[in-house]
């Protein structure tokens, strides 16, 4: 009898580990149903195919793009722009944010200017950037860098200003130099905020990439979007949207994975079981 009980309780222990995968499967139900519904609607002619392509047609378009090598060329161009702009913007933000975080005087000089600049919607820079920098890679990368700068700068500044003064005092006690204080106490302590800023910056980078490529480009996913519109090919537009979603999600997952690893020391609430 007790042996049976034991076996049952073992079973019960295993059950929760099955549940998450079931929950994951549940998440697929709605999209699959939508795709299936869409496919039937388009095939039966209820939705006009020249406006709403069937999912299978989008898949076909993607396949052709991939086979011809076009896909890789566009993805490559977009990835390079996002990576370049994001790295430049975030890098500058880390340097300047740390400086302003360290020094009240730097803050007094720079904060009002940054506040004013931040009030300008970044896309408003586009015409100016095109005038100044032409239509090649530079204005695109600069625009993305502009978009990536502010989330990182603001988050890092808030993070540094939130650091427990008591930890900084430990650094003082060991007579750390300014640079060592930044490297060994301020940046690690502000890391949770910094990651929040980086993830926000990354998603903005993708947004600004699309903006930049819609306006003037001969390659890239944004170019695919505008090309699809001009040639009346909604399948191309939807394919590009899908690719943007996948790339955005992938890059964010990468950053999130890095964040989880780098912040494993945190002792914060992770959410309940249910």
């Amino acid at each position, binding site marked *: 009898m007790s042996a049976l009980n034991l076996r049952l309780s073992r079973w019960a222990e295993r059950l929760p580990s099955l549940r998450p995968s079931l929950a994951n499967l549940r998440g697929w139900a709605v999209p699959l149903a939508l795709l299936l519904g869409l496919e039937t609607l388009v095939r039966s002619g209820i939705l006009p195919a020249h406006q709403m392509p069937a999912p299978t047609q989008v898949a076909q378009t993607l396949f052709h793009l991939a086979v011809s090598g076009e896909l890789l060329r566009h993805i490559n161009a977009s990835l390079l722009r996002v990576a370049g702009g994001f790295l430049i913007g975030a890098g500058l933000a880390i340097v300047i944010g740390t400086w302003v975080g360290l020094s009240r005087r730097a803050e007094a000089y720079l904060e009002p200017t940054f506040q004013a600049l931040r009030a300008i919607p970044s896309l408003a820079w586009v015409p100016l950037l095109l005038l100044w920098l032409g239509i090649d890679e530079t204005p695109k990368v600069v625009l993305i860098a502009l978009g990536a700068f502010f989330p990182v700068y603001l988050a890092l500044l808030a993070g540094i200003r939130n650091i427990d003064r*008591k*930890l900084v*005092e*430990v650094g*003082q*006690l*060991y*007579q750390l130099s300014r640079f*060592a204080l930044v490297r*060994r*106490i301020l940046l*690690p*302590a502000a*890391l949770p905020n910094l990651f929040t800023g980086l993830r926000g910056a990354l998603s903005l980078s993708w947004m600004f990439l699309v903006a930049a490529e819609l306006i003037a480009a001969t390659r890239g996913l944004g170019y695919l979007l505008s090309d699809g519109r001009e040639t009346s090919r909604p399948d191309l537009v939807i394919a590009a949207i899908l690719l943007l979603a996948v790339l955005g999600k992938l890059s964010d997952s990468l950053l999130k994975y890095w964040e989880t690893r780098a912040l*494993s*020391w*945190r*002792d914060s609430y992770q959410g309940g079981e249910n």
Partner: protein
Amino acid sequence: MSALLQLQNIHKAYDGLRVLDDVSLSLAPGEIVSLLGPSGCGKSTLLRIAAGLDQDFSGALEFNPLLQFGRGTGIGVVFQEPRLMPWLNVAQNVSFADGWIADEKWVQQLLRDVGLSGHADALPKKLSGGQAQRAAIARGLYGKPHVLLLDEPFSAVDAFTRMKLQDLLSELAERYEIAVLLVTHDLDEAFYLSDRVLILGGTPSRLQRELAVPLARPRDRRSAELAYLRGEALTELYQSHAI
């Protein structure tokens, strides 16, 4: 100068509010001195001045040239809270002064001394309050200081852990020949550990009295002599309207 550390005629005010008034004290090699007083009387302020963390005071702070030998300032500090870096493991926290060029052997030795040998790789979030404070003590000792300054180091742990940590402190101070200046508001702790007890009180605070504790170690917490000295201190604290 035979004293390791000397504070002379220290006056300190925060925004015009006088906190310390003409406080002088000195710390001889190998000596354990307690600074006893009610909360808010300026004990932490005095200790921060001694640690060199607060330079905004009047009076003189003198260190024995002997302190300059060896690494760092020759002074270790343990705060009321452990103040461990949460992103560093216990061993890295202990050797914080040296960063990447830590003396691993010495860290291992210190962790054994404070009873944390198995926890070298643990992150601070995994430690209990008492364990974290042990790690903080090990960090204070890492620079092989001649002087250890402690600011109510055991006030946040339970009574049993506190007694253990007190014994640990007294043992380590003897083993490594460290002079200790201990700030506390705990009468038992002050007399059990110290060679001298300085009572701080009044507004602004002055040194009210100095009591010597001429008892051999190891001491018995229940001994009549300690009880008598605690009584004396209580009387003094009542008279200075500290309690």
